[in-house]
């Protein structure tokens, strides 16, 4: 289960709407509780560094951005536990391309943005054999 602070959840929806019709992307900062709940305190938007012609259906986070954020988050005693990105005019379900580029451990949150409005956000985690994404229950609250 993944638990979002209200502000963090609102931030990823707002980011998806702001960057429409391009894909928005960013990282999820939090901690894994001993009871198995992944608690997201902060969602931080990052630049989609894909070429302009591909941004409407692809995203890429620059490794130097991730390096900088990883060091900052470690300094705060938290960690990067996942990433989010938007699917402009597509459902909040990971694509084959998402699956081919996915890493274990991280939560992948996909925000469906239809005609500029964020309509849904779903969380996913790569299965152990990397063959598929399994849904992860998403709750929000403070």
């Amino acid at each position, binding site marked *: 289960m993944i638990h979002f602070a209200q502000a963090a959840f609102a931030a990823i929806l707002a980011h998806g709407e702001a960057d429409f019709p391009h*894909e928005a*992307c960013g*990282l999820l900062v939090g901690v894994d509780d001993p009871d198995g709940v992944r608690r997201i305190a902060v969602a931080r938007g990052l630049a989609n560094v894909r070429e302009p012609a*591909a941004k409407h*259906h*692809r*995203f*890429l*986070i620059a*490794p*130097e951005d*991730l*390096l900088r954020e*990883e*060091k900052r988050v*470690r300094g705060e005693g938290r*960690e*990067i*536990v996942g*990433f989010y*990105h938007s*699917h*402009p*005019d*597509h459902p909040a379900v*990971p*694509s*084959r*391309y*998402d699956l081919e*580029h*996915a*890493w*274990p*451990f*991280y939560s*992948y949150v996909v925000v469906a943005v239809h005609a500029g409005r964020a309509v849904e956000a779903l969380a996913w985690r790569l299965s152990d054999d990397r063959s598929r994404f399994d849904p992860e229950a998403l709750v929000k609250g403070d």
Partner: protein
Amino acid sequence: MSVSILIPGALRGFIDGRAEVRVEATTAGEALAALTAEHASLRPHLFDDAGVLRSFVNVYVGDADIRTLAGMATPVPAGSEMMIVPSIAGGSPQPGLTHEEIGRYSRHLILPEVGMEGQQKLKDARVLLVGTGGLGAPLGMYLAAAGVGTLGLVDFDLVDASNLQRQIIHGTRDVGRPKIASARDRLADINPNVKIETFETRLTSANAMEILRDFDIVVDGTDNFPTRYLVNDACVLLGKPNVYGSIFRFEGQASVFGMPDGPCYRCLYPEPPPPGLVPSCAEGGVLGVLPGIVGTIQATETIKLILGGGSPLVGRLLLFDAWTMKFRELKLQKDPACALCGPNRTIDGLIDYEVFCGIGAETTAAAAPAAITATKLKQRIDAGQAVQLIDVREPHEAAIARIPGARLIPLGEVVARAGELDPSREAVLHCKGGTRSSKAIAALRDSGYTGPLVNLTGGIGAWSREVDSSVPTY
């Protein structure tokens, strides 16, 4: 010296959940070797089978990516901090198939090996065709019909009447148009869903990387050695498959180069043949249907690479002889000593392929013979000058078209029959385009012939254009 390596969350499962590991090392390579020696299950996530760092894994020393420094040899001073940074990417599905597309591709969709998923892969694919000639014609037409989403076309030539015998992408009304415009119209007619990107230029060392970069697969439909080596080298340097085909007279070849586990064209032919040894189709001729067969083999291989199924022509050279109607297959090994794709590669950028293939050097090495234009030759004949006109083409070519008064002595016989020439008078030699007559003059000189010899620039083709249009061009 002690170095710390910061581990991202994705990889901690392989190192007992630790976020940081300290190792003794002086280079980045040593540090990663020490890390994976201690945690063997981590190794396949960082390195491929050949021991090369995976493309979606970045390693930083301090704030710098080791790929921008000395790679694995990048020094790591004592107390420095390394970090493994995963590449994070993804995206939404491409637009699915429309009802029109489902109807159009139905014979593909009911093949389990293609299906909706495969057809979507074809739609998402970006394929570059180098050349829209004999091989490019069937390639472009079948790939467009198959629903390859984006086709790039590179050509700089104009459609000539002599192309129509085999380049079926161009029609009679297209003669004189840029090939790329004619090809674009034909492909759009076959399948308006295909996005066509055109590059009306000669592919060169200066533009090849930029043009090839945005495509998934490159298909080589060129007819000359410099471009073939250029395409091969650029594909290997960019890590892109190169679907190769070549044709001559009745024989064709095809293979798939540039795959990570397969050979490249240089593994097969490290050096080009001496210039002039292998004639081009313009000089040697080609059966018109032959590029149709070889080009459709290339199209088939391209589609299989996109679908990711079947047995591709990787590590295999397919040889076809249309005259005997036989296919043969040679096994090709990746050459460990290959200067381009071997482990100790010495070629790390594109070179001047004209120089590499000895073109240019050839014309400066052999002193160019005296030459005359067709117009000047006509003036001399009209003025009553006693010119001996010698045609060094083959008899079957002379049957197509002749310059009146020319005596036929084929290139292969010209030295033996030099006695038929009068060395006290000037002899003007001609062929189809000027190359063979130039060789004939060099051969006569080497044999000790002393009379004046002059080459007709542009051969019988120039005669037809400049002097007498009743002589057909071929």
